[in-house]
């Protein structure tokens, strides 16, 4: 087993709101192996983004707070790390690509200037050197005529180009870990494929570890080495990508996979999982999925399921096994 670059242990991030405590992330654990791509999958509001923000120490406080657990980056615990130290890790060691590059780029500066600023924040380079590096990065993520593009403002670029610029900016200081928070959600299908190609290429050439957050299983099958399925702030199943997609054990995971449209199947309604994500303020007891689960048993209402190792590296949190 290769060494893990990121180990999340029993992470709990709660939001203390007027209406009660929202347990956005409630005791999740996973390992991200060096050089691999770990996909966090789950529907909206299941705590994927909050997990990413917790790793970076960027949960809005108040109302949010990491109340428990550890996040080991190498041997350093990011959850209990002084803010100052964390700032030097952010961007340099761990970088993020956000969902919507349109709003994640500052509208009043050119792409080049923003990347240069980012580079000079962490590395001691002259303006000219940083500029050269920025242009190389833009080339690396596949922006045609990068010298020219560096002089553009975000609104002058197309959605795909903006997302690439955002990726270039995240890569600017050679991070060892890249967190991509739904980087393909805000772009259309053709661009999506291109962006994924960029990530695949980066993973190969840079030997970078990738934490890829998405709700699209199609993307997961292309890019993921390992998948963590989240539901309502908890992990329900984790397995290597191929194993999980071929052989899902948790009813929620198989439900998600069944939701995908099948190109062979000519007619019939698309399947869906009945019901909605439960309220995180007042969650159901026992297994959080039981109100929507077709195979729920009596025990599911009472007891939170323990992890079950169904196969080597395939863990599922379900009473069925």
């Amino acid at each position, binding site marked *: 087993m290769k060494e893990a670059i990121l180990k999340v242990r029993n992470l709990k991030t709660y939001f203390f709101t007027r209406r009660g405590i929202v347990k956005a992330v409630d005791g999740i654990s996973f390992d991200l192996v060096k050089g691999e791509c770990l996909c966090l999958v789950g529907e909206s509001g299941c705590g994927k983004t909050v997990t990413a923000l917790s790793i*970076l120490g*960027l949960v809005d406080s*108040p109302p949010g707070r990491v109340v428990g657990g550890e996040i080991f980056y190498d041997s350093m615990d990011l959850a209990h790390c002084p803010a100052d130290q964390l*700032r*030097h*890790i*952010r*961007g*340099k060691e761990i*970088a*993020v690509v*956000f969902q*919507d590059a349109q*709003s*994640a*780029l*500052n*509208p*009043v*500066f050119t792409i080049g200037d923003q990347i240069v*600023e*980012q580079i000079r*924040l*962490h590395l001691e380079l002259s303006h000219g050197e940083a500029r050269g590096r920025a242009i190389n990065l833009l080339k690396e993520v596949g922006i045609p005529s990068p010298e020219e593009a560096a002089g553009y403002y975000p609104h002058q670029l197309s959605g795909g180009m903006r997302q690439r610029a*955002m990726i270039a*900016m*995240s890569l600017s200081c050679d991070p060892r870990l890249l967190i991509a928070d739904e980087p393909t959600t805000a772009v259309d299908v053709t661009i999506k494929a291109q962006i994924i190609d960029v990530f695949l290429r980066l993973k190969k050439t840079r030997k970078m570890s990738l934490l890829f957050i998405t709700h699209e299983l199609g993307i997961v099958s292309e890019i993921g080495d390992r998948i963590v399925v989240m539901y309502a702030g908890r992990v329900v199943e984790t397995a290597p990508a191929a194993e999980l997609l071929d052989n899902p054990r948790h009813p929620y995971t198989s439900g998600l996979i069944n939701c995908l449209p099948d190109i062979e199947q000519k007619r019939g309604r698309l399947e869906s999982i009945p019901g909605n994500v439960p309220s995180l303020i007042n969650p159901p007891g026992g297994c959080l999925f039981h109100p929507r689960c077709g195979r729920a048993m009596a025990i599911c209402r009472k007891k939170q399921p323990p992890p079950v190792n169904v196969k080597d590296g395939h863990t599922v949190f379900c009473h069925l096994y």
Partner: protein
Amino acid sequence: MTKGIKKLARVVGGMKNLVFILLAVLWGLTLLLRLFEPLGYLYLALGIVFLIYVVWPLYNSRRLVGYYWQRVKRNRLAVLGLAFILFLILLAVFGPIFTPDPTAANFEQKNLPPVGFTTSESIYNPQTAQFNTRLVNGTREHPLGTDNKGRDLLAMIISGARVSLQVGLLATGIAVALGTLIGVVSAYLGGKMDNILMRLTDIVMTFPFFLLLVFIVFIFGPSLAFIVLIIGLTGWTGVARLIRSEALSLRTREFVLASKALGASDGRIILAHLVPNVISLIIVIATLSIPGVIMAEAALSFIGLGDPAVTSWGMVLRAGQQSLDTSWWVAVAPGAMLFFTVLAFNFVGDGLRDAFDPRSNI
């Protein structure tokens, strides 16, 4: 010689940059010469800030400046106002070279009307115990006439323009800088800090500013630098409020989170990301608050609490008001200048606001 220039141009990155730098150096030198004037240091500091944060960025984004100029241009009043302000600046900078000393009294030539006007003057003759009345024509030496001490009105108006612009620009500069900083910091940090800063703003706001001004001038004596500082240090409250409300919505934008995620410090986010995004608002607020400041200084001079060492419009207005029945022009000239200056700044401010507003289709 030309080779040397070309080499230098290459070093600074192009001929245009070289010309720009030379102009900047020249301007800097004129500023240095002014160091011996009152407010010289403040001037120099403001000039440097202006150069780095206004002239240089504007020069670098000529395309954008061109775009906004096209938009401003469609508002004829704003262009007129801008022309008047430029004229005023030229007058204030170069006027004193061509006019006599505005404080030099000359009783031989008192109460001269402006060129083209004629008044009658009655002089009591003690020998005949009669009033001799004679007609007095305006002379070309004193195009706007003289006051009751024989001081040249044109020189006084030009000196007043200089004072008004100094006070207007410097005090507004201080107020806007302070207000922007407090507003942005307050919005960005939020929570307790926001509360503290906004309550401070409330407190400063409730101070009757004019009374404070009178009070401080009474205690410390009237000096232009003091007046500028007081107006600047009390006038930031409105700016802070407006900037804060704008920054509050900016703060939740994702690029702030993104730059935080990429390791930027709070100070950096405030200065490099939030402030540039409110710059259009800052420009509009600054332009619209200059007239108020000019009026405040004029009012202070009018009630006799201005700096007695410099001739300002308020002071001339005061002198003119006392001799309104014999020489109306003394009061009319500074009054008209004040009127048009305030109007011009308001027009320009309105024009800029419309031009910067992406929703207005002018």
